[in-house]
């Protein structure tokens, strides 16, 4: 419950972004630099989430094969790159993580 006020603010901001040009009738164009910068937001944000989730284990960078999330995530990345198939990527990643945990366990 204590997160609701912050989420309400975030929701209002999101709505304002979506309404922006629809309400302003798109007469004011933002600078081309802003448009170019916005194009990189998805790539930057997604990978800023992925890298630490795979590489950081218990607060430290871990590149060893003992870091199962890194191994499973790398395999999933290869599948995502080749197939562009979202459900297959998730299934393969989870299956490899469980397999590694099972044999380590």
């Amino acid at each position: 419950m204590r997160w609701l006020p912050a989420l309400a603010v975030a929701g209002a901001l999101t709505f304002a972004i979506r309404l922006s040009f629809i309400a302003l009738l798109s007469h004011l164009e933002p600078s081309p630099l802003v448009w170019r910068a916005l194009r990189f937001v998805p790539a930057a944000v997604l990978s800023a989430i992925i890298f630490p989730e795979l590489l950081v284990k218990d607060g430290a960078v871990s590149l060893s094969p003992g870091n199962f999330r890194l191994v499973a995530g790398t395999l999933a990345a290869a599948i995502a790159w080749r197939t562009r198939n979202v459900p297959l990527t998730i299934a393969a990643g989870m299956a490899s993580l469980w397999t590694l945990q099972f044999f380590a366990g």
Partner: protein
Amino acid sequence: MRTLPVSPTRLEEFLCGCRDELPILLGVVPFGMIYGLFALHAGLSAFTAQAMSSVVFAGSAQLIATQLIRDSAPAAVVVLTIFIVNLRHAFYSASVAPYLRALDRRWKWLLAYLLTDEAYAVGASRYLRDSGKAEVSPFRHWYFLGAGLTLWTSWQASTAAGIFLGARAPQAWSLDFTLALTFIALVFPVLRDRSSAAAAVAAGVVAVAACGLPYKLGLLLAAVAGIASGLAVEEVRA
């Protein structure tokens, strides 16, 4: 994409929008379930997790916010991150604005609320198909509404299903890993050229280097570094 009659009614437009949204749900429903499950495991109450799906109503932003909440980030960082992640919707707003110009305020607000990636994809492709036609249907906003409401309903339902499963799945199943996997699946299609690949690599490296920063500021710093790198590479290659 089914063909509409020559002069479709409001209802025909609406139903056609619903139908055209259906194939996209294949990707949306698992994503919503992963969000619901992850939100519960991150410590949000079932009520807050469900509320976020209608108040914020943006998949990637909700998952990222949930991760920050799990790592006890301050509220200001959560709000700012959601804002940055959703800035791309300004593109969509600008892109559909010319077609919605004649509508009254209620319609504009309603369609803006429903303007997610997936509703935009279907709605904008409709306007694109119509371009060059001498006569267009006066009820195209009903098509948009159909697509948007179909998505909204499935997002709420799949969130609820994820919360239901999350309450029963033990933490030992490591289901939170589906967050990283979902984003891995989503990132490759946006790496269209060298500059976007540079943005991704720079953001990833900075995020790892900055993971010890206070207030979970690493993500914001990484996003800024990634955008700057993308722009720089684009500049050099232009």
